[in-house]
């Protein structure tokens, strides 16, 4: 019995221990989870369940390496297993038998194995080289149709700029279109993204569309990607960038060409003004009364619901519509607070006087985004209020918390409600 | 830790107690110098990388460097290597006296090099306004040449201690009783002499540079540095006193390997300077 030689001398004792260990670990496994979930490769950031040609090319190279190494593993592994089984000492007599012939090696075997390994590596090397050139830049024949975007990493959020698109600040004053944390792109068109950073090194990674490329200070990096079909994709910073690196997330939304140009047109407008009208104070109040208070959230509590699990793209579309039951008076109050509470020092909202800050994300159309706080929380009044109530508790070390402290900003509950109403109205 | 006793005839290129015949200390020094090569390699690479990618509006090295002074100090350092080689040859022949003089000359040349560097750095900061923090050129230049300067300074210290070591009394010499305190005082005096001289000479140079006439500059120098001049003179007196003949010393052919290892270090530091001189200074004028 081969196992016998592997096991400790006292079998009874060993068995007792093994049973205990197996029982404990087995119970823990069963209690915790469905085991097969481990190799379900269909997560939001799966590198295998891909949605664009760049990620597809990268997956292809990965599969080649897998097949080659699996084959070698089977060959070498079975040889090793066979040798271990065949040449083991089978009994204690065997263990004290005279030593086997003292052979020192066989150059022919060695050289042929070296040649075989080189051959296996060539099989990997060829697709690797092809992949390196393909994934590096937009293919020449597609250069003309590529859309250029500038992405800039900040601790801990993302700024996206469309240098070729103009946005109205007010009247005839224009600037390039800027948005934050949600990159909207046309599907089926290559996107060339210039990667820059405002502070430390970040890394731009949307696994389903393309592998990552770092954003490094004083270095002009770029990557290209393309979404084959319209969709909603999860992305995340992949280079450690300080306290809240783990929650520096973002989304990429790929739209059909027509819808994309509609979106551009909508985005290029300044911030939406809600028509003055009858106040629905009571309605709004009731709406907010039903929400959880910010202090009810536990630290690091999940900020997402199942809303984007089934059909995220349509969930995104519904976010573009103005909210029902808006209260113009409350929104006007929020707009005023946005100015007086010095939010404007850091945030740009085109169309709001003085709101030209560039330290924080552009909020001109923040209400139409599906997430806030750098892709960390879903954009709902409840979560937004949680965020502005105590930013430091949501996202450790972030600049808004520092800003609150430095500018001595304290928000009363009704002020929070007004600000949330205003921001959510920015569709 | 070989058990073989030292053989009586000494072959300086072969140590029978080691497997290869190379003395352990020499091998250690060679391995260390290989490592030190990588240190300087990393620093020189840093300098060259930023030379290739200069920031906009950076300083122009040609406006700052003074190749005449640096060429002079390079020549002095090369000469010091010659003296170092002479010191090694002398001690291999058992000529302690000649070895001491060569060591002192090497120290002297090393100090001239260091003095030139202090002068150069001062000029760059005060006259050319290049500091370690106001420009990338300043950052890489001062760090690289400063690291080399530290190597030279350590070399000078080592040479000085070796010079003092050459006075260790041999067994049976009556001075042996107090040899440790003598060594410490002697070393201290030598270091004070070197530092005070450096200070005095540099003060004189700066005073003459800044003054309108020679007399004014010299007068100012005497007035401000009187104390240091006195200290330097006292220290020299002390050195002469310590160096008086005091019977047999325990410093002979057996110590050749110590001097030789030190020599390897010193030559290496020289060679590195040739590389730095080429890569940092001369490259700008090609």
């Amino acid at each position, binding site marked *: 019995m081969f196992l016998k030689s592997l096991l400790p001398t006292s079998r009874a004792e060993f068995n007792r221990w093994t049973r205990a260990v197996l029982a404990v670990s087995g119970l823990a496994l069963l209690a915790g989870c469905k085991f097969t979930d481990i190799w379900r490769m269909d997560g939001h950031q799966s590198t295998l369940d891909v949605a664009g040609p760049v990620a597809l090319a990268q997956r292809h190279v990965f599969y080649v390496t897998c097949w080659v190494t699996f084959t070698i593993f089977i060959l070498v592994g079975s040889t090793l297993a066979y040798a271990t089984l065949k040449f083991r000492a089978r009994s204690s007599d065997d263990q004290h038998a005279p030593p086997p012939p003292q052979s020192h090696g066989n150059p022919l075997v060695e050289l042929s194995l070296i040649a075989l390994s080189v051959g296996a590596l060539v099989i990997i090397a060829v697709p*690797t080289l092809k992949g390196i050139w393909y994934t590096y830049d937009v293919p020449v024949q597609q250069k003309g149709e590529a859309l250029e975007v500038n992405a800039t990493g900040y601790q801990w959020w993302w700024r996206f700029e469309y240098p070729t698109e103009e946005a109205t600040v007010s009247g005839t004053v224009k600037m390039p279109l800027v948005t934050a944390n949600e990159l909207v792109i046309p599907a089926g068109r290559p996107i060339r993204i210039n990667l820059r950073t405002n502070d430390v090194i970040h890394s731009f990674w949307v696994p389903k569309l393309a592998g*990552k490329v770092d954003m490094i200070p004083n270095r002009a990096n770029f990557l290209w990607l393309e979404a084959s079909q319209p969709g909603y994709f999860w992305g995340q910073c992949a280079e450690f960038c300080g306290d809240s690196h783990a929650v520096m997330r973002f989304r990429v939304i790929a739209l059909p060409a027509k819808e994309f140009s509609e979106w551009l047109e909508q985005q290029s407008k300044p911030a939406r003004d809600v028509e003055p009208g009858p106040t629905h104070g009571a309605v709004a109040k009731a709406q907010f009364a039903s929400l959880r208070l910010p202090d009810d959230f536990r630290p690091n509590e999940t900020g997402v619901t199942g809303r984007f699990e089934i059909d995220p793209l349509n969930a995104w579309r519904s976010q573009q519509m103005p909210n029902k039951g808006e209260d113009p008076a409350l929104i006007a109050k929020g707009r005023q607070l946005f100015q007086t509470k010095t939010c404007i020092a850091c945030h740009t909202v085109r169309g709001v006087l003085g709101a030209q800050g560039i330290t924080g994300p552009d909020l001109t159309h923040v209400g139409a985004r599906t997430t806030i706080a750098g892709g960390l929380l879903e954009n709902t009044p409840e979560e937004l209020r949680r965020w502005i109530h105590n930013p430091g508790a949501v996202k450790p070390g972030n600049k808004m918390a520092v800003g609150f402290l430095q500018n001595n900003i304290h928000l009363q509950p009704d002020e929070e409600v007004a600000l949330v109403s205003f921001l959510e109205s920015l569709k | 830790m070989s058990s073989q006793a*030292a053989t009586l005839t000494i072959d300086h290129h072969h140590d029978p107690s080691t497997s290869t015949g190379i003395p352990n200390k020499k091998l250690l020094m060679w391995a260390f110098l290989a490592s030190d090569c990588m240190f300087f390699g990393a620093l020189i690479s840093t300098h060259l990388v930023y030379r290739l990618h200069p920031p906009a509006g950076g300083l122009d090295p040609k406006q700052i460097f003074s190749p005449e002074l640096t060429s002079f100090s390079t020549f002095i350092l090369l000469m010091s290597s010659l003296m170092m080689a002479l010191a090694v040859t002398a001690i291999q022949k058992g000529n302690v006296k000649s070895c001491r003089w060569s060591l002192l000359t090497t120290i002297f040349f090393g100090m001239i090099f260091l003095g030139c560097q202090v002068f150069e750095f001062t000029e760059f900061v005060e006259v050319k306004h290049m500091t370690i923090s106001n420009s990338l050129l300043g950052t890489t230049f001062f760090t690289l040449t400063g690291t080399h300067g530290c190597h030279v300074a350590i070399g000078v210290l080592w040479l000085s201690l070796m010079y003092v070591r050459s006075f260790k009394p041999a067994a049976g010499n009556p001075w042996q009783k107090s040899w440790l305190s003598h060594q410490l005082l002697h070393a201290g005096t030598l270091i004070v002499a070197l530092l005070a001289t450096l200070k005095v000479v540099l003060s004189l140079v700066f005073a003459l540079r800044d003054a309108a006439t020679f007399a004014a500059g010299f007068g100012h120098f005497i007035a401000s540095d009187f104390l240091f001049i006195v200290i330097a003179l006292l220290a020299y007196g002390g050195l002469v006193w310590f160096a008086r003949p005091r019977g047999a010393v325990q410093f002979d052919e057996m110590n050749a390997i110590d001097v030789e290892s030190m020599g390897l270090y010193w030559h290496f530091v020289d060679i590195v300077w040739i590389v730095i001189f080429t890569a940092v200074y001369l490259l700008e004028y090609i």
Partner: protein
Amino acid sequence: MDALAKPAFLTKEEKPAAKPRLLAHPTAKTGLMSWLTTVDHKRIGFLYGFFALFFFLVGGFEALLIRTQLMVPNNTVLTAQQYNTMFTMHGTTMIFLAIMPLSAAFFNFIMPLQIGARDVAFPRLNAFSLWTFVAGAIILNIGWFLPAATHGAPNDGWFGYAPLTSKMFTPQHSTDYWVMGLQLLGVASIAASLNFIVTIINLRAPGMTMMRLPVFTWMTLVTAFLIVLSFPAITIALVELMMDRNFNTNFFEVSNGGMPILWQHLFWVFGHPEVYILILPAMGIISEILPTFARKPLFGYPIVVFSGACIGFLGFGVWSHHMFTTGMGTVATAAFAMATMAIAVPTGVKIFNWIGTIWGGHLQMRTPMMFALGFVWMFMIGGFSGVMHAAAPADAQQQDSYFVIAHFHYVLIGGSLFALLGGIHYWFPLMFGRKVSEFWGKLSFWIIFAGFNITFFPMHFLGLNGMPRRTFTYDPNMGWNTANFVSTIGAYILGLGIFIYFATMVYTYLSGERVGRDVWDARTLEWSLPNPPPEYNYRVIPTVHARDAWWYEKNNPEELAQERAEHAKAEAAHGGIHMPFASIWPFVTSVGILIGAIGVSALGPDNATTATRLTVVLSGAVVMFLGIYFWALEGNEGYHLHLDENGEPAEEEIAADHH
């Protein structure tokens, strides 16, 4: 180590009349002073092992905290800052304070025995390396005990990418501790490696040609060269970082044109050879264990040696594969990808040779053999995921994801650590004269093996499923929950296995079964010694006639006995066994360095006056200088041992100063 402390050694210790009191040689053979002043490579090796295992447990505890935090999504066991500190210190501790010094423990203890030497070439330098390593470890960990707001333990990741480490983004002293700690560890490693290089090249016993060196000694030599040539790169990078933080220089200061990418190049020029510094000693150990328990020589010795050297050499040309995502351009990426694949060939060759060694052998399934076989399997898996990373386009997805975590833990735990744990089992009888119980040894092996795979295999899937590394939290909707949970359970099992392993070791050290010489019927020279080996190692320096010197001697006993008797006579005529004196000065020098390093790192410009800082730094420098100076003045004289027939020292005399 009891035998080393035999009072017999104390007899007839005489001081030369002319020795100044300050330079009197320490004579303690027991107690604290004996450990602080020891220059015996075996005691120094033991101390390296002791500190390494202590920090291994510390790093392991940090790992368990990390896994506990990630057990479920949005967990709050640790805050973001605590988590970042934890993974930084886990990485730094495991690499610099656990695996490297544990390898150094074997270098120190085993290597001189394997080449038939009585000590390393520079025994006091060896002690200096040890104490400077301890000083570095203290600096690195000092932040745990200081307020986190202004100090704290390092928290910028073990490769501390600029500009996150700059004063602007990390104003706390945590990064200063990291810089100075690594700096001291670098000094210690380089000094130790210089010593090993000279020892292996120069102190081989007669007949021990380079191509007869045991493979472990060969790998020690290659590793020592890697350390000597690669550590300068990180030393300079750290100097530049220190200058940036303390003197406002611009090496990585973006606003003045500094390029943070330079840090990455300098770091990985060191960092990749460092990977081989961690794995080559392990490969050496495996190449000792497998032949012993297969009872036949290593298959293709010259090729194993050559491939080891080849890995070391190529290791300097592949650093940028850690930077495939930094936008290097196509040509550079392709070149580094090809070079990295090339390195897989010598690595694969080693695996083939290990299998060849087993083939046709008579395998004895003892605990060290279990660890060695476990190593080969796990290292194969780690090697294969390594090849996947070499394919740059695939790496663009895997870089900085949990796939990488899985890969390097397969190489470092399944590789390095398995080999080191197996090595402890293997050489334990030689070091302490006691044998570890097979039952507890195998039990701990299986639990460690299972726990390790349960922890790290799911991480491959986590990585492929897009989970980035160094994240203190994740959302429940990402499909990462199960794998993380399983992984954490695995980590606890692994922890249990490690606990059993160490409990067994401590028990065996205190009251394990005593065994005689050469318990495994091994092949290399160290097994010819009684256990534990006496302070002078070899009574007579052996003469080596074959690659597996001890095996040859066992098979040709008459020839060897005769030869040995002749050598003993010759040696006695030369004055007996030359032993180095113990010395306190290496320790004093390291203390000076520690004080200076505290002055540099703990007292930043913002919380102490320049005068205070300078005072502390200068007093450290003075202590260090005096330590070195007295060390030099003390001279390298030693004493001679004359042994009686039983190998007991009969007589000691002061040897002449050998200058």
